[in-house]
């Protein structure tokens, strides 16, 4: 098993499948009355979050706690970071405290990679800048496998703000590894042509309606509210009209096709409530699966020989 999880590109088919298979068993723990295993007793996991993230931080925290690890939540806000402490100094502090794993979210792409040189424990990338979010890709592919029974051969449309999305990047890489075909969909300003170089067979489309009938999975991405009306597209309304998923567009999808969203959603912008709350939607399952997949990652990376 890999020591660090920095990029979805680090995962080969065997490793990703091992994580998925382990997550299946971890999911049974979440359904029990006593949702606790002694597996990581005595180990310390630090959640080092330089950006706000309720969903991912809580998910990692629940996962580590279900495995009986001690969890320290370190948020940049109100911490020594605001007093000017560098990432390197923070890393040394964590090292001195004996952290066995550091889960890091950082606005700078590549920060988790730098951290691996400063701490002895495992480093898990929980989102770095616009670069990657590998555990999100693992939980998304796990959800596809759960719903559709396979990943190889699936047609996956990733729709929206691909340019700024680490979720899109990690998913594209992992889906390619696992044999799915990815089409990136969005306005040309948010899906630049050079994304075609991400993996050998990724396709790019600017027409969502043309892509929908062949898609097995439609993964909607969040459009950052802060970009509304910026130079990327004229208005939220126009974006929604061309790239938003609503009931009419869902009818163009195959009967078995599913709708995914990494959250948090902008209801009424990239996805309507009707689409988000439909039986095709896996949005709630993705959150549940996130805990199981992160338990699997922590077990496989920390459960063995130190």
């Amino acid at each position: 098993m890999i020591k660090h999880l920095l990029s979805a590109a680090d995962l080969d088919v065997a490793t990703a499948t091992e994580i998925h298979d382990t997550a299946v068993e971890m999911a049974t723990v979440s359904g029990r009355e006593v949702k606790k295993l002694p597996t990581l007793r005595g180990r310390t996991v630090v959640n080092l979050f330089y950006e706000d993230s309720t969903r991912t931080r809580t998910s990692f925290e629940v996962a580590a706690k279900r495995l009986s690890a001690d969890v320290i939540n370190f948020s940049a806000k109100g911490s020594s970071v605001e007093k000017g402490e560098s990432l390197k100094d923070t890393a040394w502090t964590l090292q001195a405290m004996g952290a066995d794993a550091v889960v890091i979210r950082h606005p700078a792409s590549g920060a988790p990679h730098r951290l691996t040189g400063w701490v002895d424990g495992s480093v898990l990338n929980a989102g770095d800048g616009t670069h990657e979010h590998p555990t999100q890709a693992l939980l998304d592919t796990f959800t596809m496998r759960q719903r559709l029974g396979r990943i190889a051969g699936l047609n996956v449309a990733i729709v929206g703000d691909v340019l700024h999305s680490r979720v899109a990047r990690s998913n594209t890489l992992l889906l390619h590894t696992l044999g799915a075909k990815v089409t990136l969909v969005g306005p040309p300003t948010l899906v630049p042509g050079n994304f075609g170089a991400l993996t050998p067979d990724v396709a790019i489309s600017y027409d969502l309606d043309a892509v929908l009938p062949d898609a097995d999975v439609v993964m909607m991405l969040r459009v950052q509210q802060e970009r509304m009306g910026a130079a990327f597209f004229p208005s939220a309304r126009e974006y929604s009209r061309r790239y938003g998923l609503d009931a009419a567009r869902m009818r163009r999808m195959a009967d078995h096709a599913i709708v995914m969203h990494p959250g948090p959603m902008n209801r009424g912008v990239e996805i309507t409530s009707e689409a988000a709350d439909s039986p095709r939607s896996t949005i709630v399952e993705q959150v549940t699966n996130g805990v199981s997949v992160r338990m699997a990652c922590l077990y496989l990376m920390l459960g063995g020989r130190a």
Partner: protein
Amino acid sequence: MGYPNKIILSDVDVHRVVDRIAHQILEKTDGAADVVLLGVATRGVPLARRLAERIHAFEGRTLPVGTLDITLYRDDLRHRSPRALGHTEIPPGGLDGRRVILVDDVLFSGRTVRAALDALNDLGRPAVVQLAVLVDRGHRQLPIRADYVGKNIPTSLSETVKVLLAEIDGCDEVRLMGAGASPAGRADDTAKEASA
């Protein structure tokens, strides 16, 4: 003193021993009333299914059979590479108030049973927990004993007991491997029992 690759139980012996344990369970549990058989992965699972099948043949009673993977409860996790998880499945009706019989192939140090008892703690509250094993090879490191033993095999620590079952290995056999012999075929369970 070892018996290199000596066959301790043949396929006929294994069937006879399973039959005997099934009878003992019926005797000691008043006809296996409220009994749940829980096979400890890997080879305890087919053994539990066989015991249920034999008890059904003898008494017509169908016992619930579950599986228990104790990997996440092992006390030697950080001394080894992480291993793939097996499947834990508790039969409908759960374990609360039931008479649970843990079934495993080899009883050695007792640490696997300790881990199984810890796992049971998280899964429910059985009224009684008993232990059935095909082979007891001694060398306990914890105060644990089996309620039903197929065969006691005195061993030295340098020897390995290798249990083969048709469901997994294609044949039924119990072998005593001498010092230095490769325990191929049941490496997982041997490691499980040998852990100190």
